[in-house]
């Protein structure tokens, strides 16, 4: 079971929520401290092939885990699926409304209060003012941050930011929820609450895509795992099998 196992392609197009083919993303970071001069002097820095022809299919109503070491390309893949990064090559088709928790709370503005960040997050996703107004209280309620809602975000602990981000992501009841490296934050009770919310989402025929290098969360929440390394899909399958294989490789020091 090595090499890129092709993702099973559903026969009817209605079957999937996300369908990506041959996704390729290359970063060309500028190494120079003076980017303008750097750009003129040396056309570009070393290229990073963050995604190198990735195929991914998420059938409707399933939760998928994206497994891989640091730097494997998980966050990049989620950005492409979220539509915030246009791939250099390949195609992505997404059905339904996406809500992102790409690295928890990263869409936030620290100078603004938690409440205003909730407003901004909802409006940016494309909700109307009325929809947002209806959601703000439930979101703050779910997050359980209490009167901290009216304090600037940079006075929050990382756990509180995570709670707020998670509350926004799930309360919007998206069709697809993308989560990047999350569940290490938040205390026990919130973790239970958030797991329940995620299962509810999947029960409502919603989709979950979780990227992590932690294995526990996958066993609890995911039906399928896509293991990527160096921008390539290594294996796709049920959590048990893939995790076993992944462990073996880690031990052997192959990946």
């Amino acid at each position, binding site marked *: 079971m090595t090499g890129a196992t092709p993702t099973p392609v559903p026969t009817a197009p209605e079957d999937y929520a996300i369908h990506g083919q041959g996704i390729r993303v290359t970063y060309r970071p500028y190494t120079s401290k003076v980017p303008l001069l750097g750009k003129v002097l040396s056309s570009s820095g070393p290229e990073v092939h963050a995604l190198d022809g990735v195929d991914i299919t998420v059938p409707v109503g399933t939760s998928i885990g994206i497994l891989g070491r640091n730097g494997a390309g998980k966050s990049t893949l989620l950005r492409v699926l979220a539509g915030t990064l246009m791939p250099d090559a390949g195609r992505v*088709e997404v059905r339904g409304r996406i809500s992102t928790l790409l690295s928890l709370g990263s869409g936030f503005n620290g100078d603004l209060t938690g409440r205003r960040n909730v407003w901004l997050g909802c409006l940016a996703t494309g909700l109307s003012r009325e929809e947002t107004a209806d959601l703000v209280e439930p979101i703050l309620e779910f997050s359980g941050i209490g009167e901290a809602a009216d304090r600037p975000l940079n006075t929050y602990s990382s756990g509180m930011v995570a709670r707020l981000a998670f509350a926004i992501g799930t309360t919007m009841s998206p069709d697809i929820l993308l989560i990047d490296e999350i569940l290490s934050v938040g205390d026990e009770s919130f973790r239970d609450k958030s797991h329940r919310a995620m299962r509810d989402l999947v029960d409502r025929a919603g989709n979950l895509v979780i990227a992590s290098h932690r294995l526990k969360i996958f066993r609890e929440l995911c039906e399928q795992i896509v293991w990527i390394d160096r921008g390539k899909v290594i294996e796709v399958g049920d959590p048990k099998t893939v995790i076993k294989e992944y462990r073996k490789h880690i031990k052997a020091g192959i990946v």
Partner: protein
Amino acid sequence: MATRTADTRRVSIPRGYFRALWERRWFIRELAFGNIMGKHATDMLGVLWWVLNPLMMTGVYFLVFGVILGGRRGDPAFLAYLLVGVFAMRYMSGTMVGSAKMITGGGKLITTIAFPRMVLPLAAMIEDATAFLAALGSFYFLVAPINSIWPTWWLLFFPVPFLLHSMFVLGMGALTARLVVPIRDIRNVVPHLTRMWFYLTPILWTLDRIEGAATWIQVMVKANPMFSFLSLYRTALMSRPFEPVYLATSAAWAVVILVFGVWTFIRHEGSMARYL
């Protein structure tokens, strides 16, 4: 369920882009006014400074260029002449700097949430347009009477230069925002560029200063898009003679820069996240 297809690089503006932009109108409003509305305690003071800042700046220019250097002899209503120019120029440079800031400061928002990125220069423009209008509003109360200028029917013409100028400003904002992503140094260049533009536009000085100057200087001054917009503004606000040629050049500049700026911005917005 909506289908979103993200193909490779964009060559044209994707279908539904402007509808998606319209759907974000509340987001735009929030970005444009959020900083002022968010802190209700400083609400009034913030708005007051919007008006006071450009007024005080105009005062300094008037003292130095109008009184000490004698520039006010060039125009019977030099203070008003100066003020219209300073405010209009601030509107443009403010939007250019603001658009760049929205992009570099909004990095986290951009890598996390998918929305049409034109939201950012639009919000920057709307914020500065509001400041511009608020500052101009003080014009008829404070400055115009000093120069014995009273509103005429030409005031109804004001929306025309305002609209054309705003189109131009939005185009310049989008252009700056598009360039600042791969070339961060643009942030350092823009203030110098707009300052030079300001000095080259007849704002601190009047046209009689270049009478008899070399032809290329005459051409350069008159070809300046800001000169066209200012001519129309001065017609509307100061009842200066209306010259149709400046309406034509203003409209041409507005359309060309808006279309080019927005087109190049949207074409490249998909790769924005990889530089932030």
